[in-house]
């Protein structure tokens, strides 16, 4: 049982790390701000959660695990809010998202 948890935590840590690097490459490769926002979302949500979960499994039950859980909780609260506020501010500031085809409704900002 302990070994399974151990192995699982390694898998989580590695996957989380991979997602992080992917997100980093994403914010370099994607063409405009709004698409980069999605790439950053990858690193903010699943990457962080996986790495912290991996750590939780290493820590075992206890206060450390609880604190890690708090970090996950806070990050999952603040992450999307920050992303949303950022997108909204960018839109408000007049930044237009690059659209696939221009037949979508023109923005009304």
């Amino acid at each position: 049982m302990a070994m399974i948890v151990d192995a699982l935590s390694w898998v989580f840590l590695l996957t989380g790390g991979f997602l992080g690097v992917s997100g980093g490459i994403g914010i370099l490769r994607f063409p405009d701000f709004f698409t980069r926002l999605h790439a950053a979302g990858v690193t903010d949500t699943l990457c962080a959660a996986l790495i912290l979960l991996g750590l939780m499994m290493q820590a075992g039950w206890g206060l450390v695990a609880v604190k890690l859980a708090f970090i996950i909780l806070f990050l999952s609260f603040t992450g999307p809010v920050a992303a949303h506020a950022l997108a909204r501010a960018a839109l408000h500031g007049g930044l237009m998202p690059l659209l696939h085809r221009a037949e979508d409704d023109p923005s009304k900002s």
Partner: protein
Amino acid sequence: MRHIISLTLILAGFWLLLSGHFVPLLLGLGAVSILLVVAIALRMDAFDHENQPLHLTFRFTPYWVWLAGEIVKSNIEVVRCIWGPVSAISPTRIHLTATQRSDVGKVIYANSITLTPGTVAMRLEGDQIEVHALTRAAAASLQGGEMGRRVRELER
């Protein structure tokens, strides 16, 4: 009143879990701290009356599990886009109607949209949510409306 009690209880739990020291001095200080925080929170609340959605917390668990699954799925999708050719992405902008009744419900909906990578809620005005999606597929799955329905079931 119910909000005050639930906030106090949750803060007390937060303190105990953070602290981990169960000596009388720290417990006493914790009690004083919690009272202070609740007092400040009350003073802050006096200026507009948005209810504390804390009582919703208990019904969240099934939703969280479902959402976690969604997050994993959409993460895989976005990572595929990142490593694949740039032409694979098709940024799209859509408008959704939030059918949730309360403000809190709408906020949960918007946050859930943002939390799943590939879709970001850009604007929330009235009951209109403007969403930017990385791919058409992501936009379409949102328009399917399952997430909105699940959030609506949360409130009641």
